């Protein structure tokens, strides 16, 4: 999900960089206030842990393999502010040392994976954990799996919005493509996150209850940060929607005049989630949207059931 340079225009890069910098400043402030001095080096070592985790591949069907991003894993283990700082460090090193992800696109990458992935992912985890009935390990594991999947899809949707706002890719194509592919990738992320949380929970159960960072982890301290994350996401959506809505119109017209819709449909039969149309619905865009929602719900239910089953068996 690392966006290289050249895909985002200057306006989008600047906007996302400002949002990411604001969130990072808030996160650093939260960490500085809550972090005991003995845990300061943990930020760096946790970043190295995330880096090592991203290098381990897990097998997917058909001989391919993927790797995790680790946003939600870091957020559950460290808390949202610390996870965001650690992920920012990882992304900076990947950009400057390995040229993975662009320099100009760094703000967008930090926003997608650090702010949306870690902070919103942490919020989703807390909500799901509470909804599943409190402080058992099984609930924590199931909530982590759910949050990991959801945060992966949300980050992909943000990435798609940035690409569409830059005019690089048509919104009609990039939203279903990114959301569809990452709904599948997110299942891998969810499984591995759940397994790691379960393993840590069994080895050191005290870590999951209060959080590694010590101090007061009741969620009150991070309310402002979470509020910022949601606010930033809404701001991004509001900022992007005028650009996004312009593009489909152009595509619609060309699709009608050149029969272009047919080739687009052909492309999607190659994708892992083939055929984004629902039968019996007249408008193409309405059908695509409905199919997207239906697909999202199906994978959502799948991830949820999988997480419940895994958690029950392993605890």
């Amino acid at each position: 999900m690392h966006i290289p340079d050249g895909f985002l225009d200057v306006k989008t890069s600047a906007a996302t960089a400002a949002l990411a910098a604001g969130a990072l400043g808030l996160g650093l402030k939260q960490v500085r206030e809550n972090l005991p001095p003995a845990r300061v080096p943990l930020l760096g070592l946790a970043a190295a842990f995330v880096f090592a985790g991203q290098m381990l591949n897990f097998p997917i069907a058909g001989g391919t393999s993927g790797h995790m991003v680790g946003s939600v894993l870091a957020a559950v283990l460290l808390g949202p502010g610390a996870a965001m700082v650690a992920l920012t460090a990882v992304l900076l090193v990947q950009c400057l040392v390995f040229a993975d992800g662009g320099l100009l696109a760094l703000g967008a990458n930090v926003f997608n994976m650090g702010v949306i992935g870690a902070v919103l992912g942490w919020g989703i985890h807390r909500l799901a954990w509470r909804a599943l009935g409190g402080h058992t390990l099984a609930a924590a594991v199931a909530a982590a799996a759910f949050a990991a999947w959801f945060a992966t899809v949300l980050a992909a949707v943000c990435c798609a919005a940035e690409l569409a706002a830059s005019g690089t890719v048509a919104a009609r194509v990039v939203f279903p493509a990114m959301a569809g592919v990452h709904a599948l990738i997110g299942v891998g992320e969810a499984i591995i996150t759940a397994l790691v949380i379960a393993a840590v929970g069994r080895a050191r159960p005290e870590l999951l209850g209060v959080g590694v960072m010590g101090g007061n982890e009741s969620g009150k301290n991070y309310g402002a940060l979470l509020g910022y994350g949601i606010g930033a996401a809404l701001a991004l959506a509001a900022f992007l929607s005028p650009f996004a809505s312009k593009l489909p119109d152009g595509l619609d017209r060309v699709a009608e005049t050149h029969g272009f819709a047919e080739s687009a449909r052909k492309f999607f039969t190659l994708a892992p989630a083939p055929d984004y149309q629902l039968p019996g619905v007249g408008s193409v865009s309405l059908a695509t949207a409905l199919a997207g929602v239906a697909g999202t719900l199906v994978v959502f239910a799948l991830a949820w059931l999988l997480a419940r089953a895994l958690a029950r068996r392993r605890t």
Partner: protein
Amino acid sequence: MKPPPPSIGVAQRRLLAALLFSVLVTATTRLAPFPTAAGWTLAGLAVALLAAVLLCRVNFLQWSRRLLFLEPFALGAATLAFWQPHGGVIFACAVTRATLCLGALVLLGQTTPFAALLAALRAWHFPGLLCTTLMLLERYRSVLVEESARMRRARAARVFLARRTAHWQALGELLGQLFVRTLARTERLYAAMCARGWRDGV
């Protein structure tokens, strides 16, 4: 023979140059009238990049190999650009811009070690906590990667049957253990830092 590490000022200038170059490349297609003026500007920027590569006396083969290795990622992402009006032109634009920016970034990585870049960030008054995190990440990155490889090797040496589910479980177990070990390492590291007179944020 290794060249001496660049000074803070040099690292700052290189970082700024890479950033400026990326902005110029990215802004070109919006500002210059399409296609001829934008094409000439991009060609000029490409010549400037090649000149910089030659002037910096980096290993040209190494630079181009690294660029070729990273190019498929950009190409893969750019294929999505095809499905829109004037898709071919936008695709070509995106790939050209991505390649030029990537070239500059690879050059920066080849000429300037991370420690020098970190010193440049510190001199620009980046938050101290972030700088400390970056420093420790750079120091312990390879340590933890090697540790996880060691744990994998140890498991592979003892386990004969590996079904796919077993693989997933082992991976989860391994990362969980790695995190617990990382915590223990942090405690040792903190004691060592305190023994050397470390104070908050230094």
